């Protein structure tokens, strides 16, 4: 049911009136980018045809396995655009949290702790979240061995719910989905004016990018409904997400603490399972009574900075555009909407170049 017919080639006249857009990748980045483009331009460009190509759809994408906590890395690289996109995403989601859609989206509020063994500067996102503050002395007693920490209320956005919700919104707009692995941009160029590249860790396969590295994560999902806060422990020398963390979800609790740069192994490793389990039980002793449901491994598409840029392909029979949107590391859900809007901005500029009378509605 996911196969769709490609529209037959149009005449030159028709081509001026419409846009054919292909989005490669159906994780949170691909789907939200498609949604942002169609929402902003569907009344401006008629027809605006979007087809999403992916080898994996929900629930088999990287986004589906992630815990879904909105939280950028704690040690900022200070990239201003990314700080802005993170904040935009939080504000966008916060508007939905009291809406009737929240449940279906997998969206809810959750508070919790980031704990450290040494002091560090407040993060760039302290004003984006709700009620950010430092931990009191009494609270630090909850975490022996840790001397500093933060508490704030953030959002949870669970991929397993959010992605199907996005697909429903896209279907309402007539977006098509095709389960197919795309091996090159050129494969799509005859039929599409713009290709949006949201392929995450697989972007290498379409275009070599030495900056894109997997950061392997392995998590354990357990049933522990008495845990109502996230707890993320940090060690500045070890690096982000290399220390135990516990993130409750709507049904199960994610226990993690693995961040292995350069490791492409997508199989669960029993050694990592033990590291994660022991680390989690040390943080929260009652976890010992939790029922283990499953293990999962995913590859965070890590890059020095997210690649959002336009690339024009002039070689070949037809000129086509590629907009890249990949490299979101372990903060894809956190930053997705800001990036989607940025891609929509680029798309808007492409439209204006094609036909100046098109005005994008922001």
């Amino acid at each position, binding site marked *: 049911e996911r196969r769709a017919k490609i529209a037959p080639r149009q005449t030159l006249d028709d081509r001026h009136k419409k846009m054919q857009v292909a989005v490669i990748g159906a994780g949170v980045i691909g789907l939200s980018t498609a949604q942002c483009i169609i929402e902003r331009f569907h009344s401006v460009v008629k027809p605006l045809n979007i087809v999403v190509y992916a080898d994996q759809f929900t629930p088999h994408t990287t986004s589906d396995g992630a815990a879904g906590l909105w939280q950028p890395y704690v040690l900022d690289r200070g990239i201003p655009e990314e700080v802005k996109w993170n904040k935009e995403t939080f504000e966008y989601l916060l508007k939905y949290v009291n809406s009737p859609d929240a449940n279906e989206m997998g969206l809810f509020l959750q508070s919790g702790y980031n704990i450290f063994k040494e002091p560090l500067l407040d993060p760039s996102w302290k004003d984006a979240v709700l009620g950010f503050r430092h931990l009191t002395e009494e609270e630090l007693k909850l975490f022996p061995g840790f001397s500093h920490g933060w508490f704030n209320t953030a959002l949870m956005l669970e991929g397993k719910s959010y992605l199907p919700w996005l697909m429903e919104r896209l279907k309402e707009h007539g977006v098509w989905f095709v389960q197919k692995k795309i091996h090159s941009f050129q494969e799509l160029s005859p039929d599409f004016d713009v290709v949006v590249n949201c392929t995450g860790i697989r972007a290498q396969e379409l275009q070599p990018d030495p900056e894109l590295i997997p950061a392997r994560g392995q998590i354990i999902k357990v049933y522990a409904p008495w845990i109502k806060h996230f707890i993320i422990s940090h060690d500045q020398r070890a690096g982000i997400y290399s220390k135990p963390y516990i993130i409750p979800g709507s049904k199960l609790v994610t226990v993690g603490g693995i961040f292995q740069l350069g490791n492409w192994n997508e199989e669960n490793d029993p050694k990592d399972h033990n590291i994660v389990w022991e680390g989690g039980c040390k943080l929260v002793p009652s976890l010992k*009574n939790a029922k283990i449901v499953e293990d999962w491994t995913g590859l965070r598409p890590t890059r020095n900075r997210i690649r959002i840029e336009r690339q024009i392909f002039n070689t070949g029979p037809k000129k086509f555009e590629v907009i890249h949107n990949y490299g979101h590391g372990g903060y894809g859900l956190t930053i997705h909407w800001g990036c989607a809007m940025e891609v929509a901005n680029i798309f808007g500029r492409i439209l204006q170049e094609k036909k100046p009378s098109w005005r994008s509605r922001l």
Partner: protein
Amino acid sequence: MKHVKHVQTGASHALELDPALSNISLPDAVGRNERGIFHLVLCTMDKMRVAVIGAGVVGLSTAVCIAESIPDCSVTVIAEKFSPYTTSDVAAGILSPHFSRETPIERQKRWFDDTFAHIFSIAQSEEASEIGVQFLSGWEIFKEAPIEPIPYWSDSVLAFRMMNNSELKRFPQATFGWTYTTLLCECTSYLPWLEKRLKNAGGQLQTGKITGFWELHGKYEIIVNCSGIGARALTGDMNVYPVRGQIHKVHAPWLKHFVRVGDGTSYIYPGISSVTLGGTRQKDDWRMSVDPSDSEAIFKACCALEPSLQRARKLFEGVGLRPVRAVLRLEKEKLEGEGSHMYLVHNYGHGGTGVTFHWGTAKEAAQLVQECVTEIRCRPVRPKPKL
């Protein structure tokens, strides 16, 4: 050498008990010190029999405190209802004091601090989930700022502070609020654990209805009255009255915070097995059956606070009668009658703050029982000794 208290003067005396009498089972013994010969009556060296009436959170915790701190006692809990049929089982179990100011604040603070410390150590342990204990953060919101902007218990919970504007924005009716982290104790798990702990300490449980304290005369030396709303009929105390509370337990595991409206009429408490939605506060209302118009009002009010509740799966509803008393009755009484007397320790009138105060009042009640035990053990029946 034995130290005894002179019953009439209250003075403490060191006595050498006559070795010839050391094997004899008393009621009386003879001892000697420099002041002469004292005739003392000591009660039978058999254990002091204590009956605790009531098997809710107050009764069971009091029984445990007595059994564990006074090895001289054998404790039997006598109750009509046991978990899961007590008032405590209906409660959400949040540790959050909202009590009449007629009870001195220092006492309330002590009871809350003792209970918080006790539940806190359980929360940090491996057994937390089995015992029904969890941490919970959330928001207490007000239409208008309360008379006391900072409650007396602000230091007792974790990280108490005022809500800021961005936090208040989510609750359009609220102009003021508190946010803090506290504990929640689900009695449907906690009470069975207390029962087990009591048995481990040598205590016993017995089903039975007590209509008058004298029923127990001759079988028990000390009675501890933890009968909650039942105290009204049992003691004739008109100061304790029911405030009816109806609740709805729903399945909404994505909810991670409590929400309480300042006057206590609406609240959402996510627990371990379910989320408790409430409530009602109907004074002098003894109805134990679920009222459908209350159900509707509760659900509507809670959905207004948390719209995602519309999608919650309803589990079941319940009613509890909060045993409200302006002054929590925690005191000793000596009942005279039939040529004899009985010692009575009252521990009731916790209102909607039973779980919140239970361990603190249990400890204090156990101390009162200890005082009774000491008094009984040192009772003389011979003429006054020469000084």
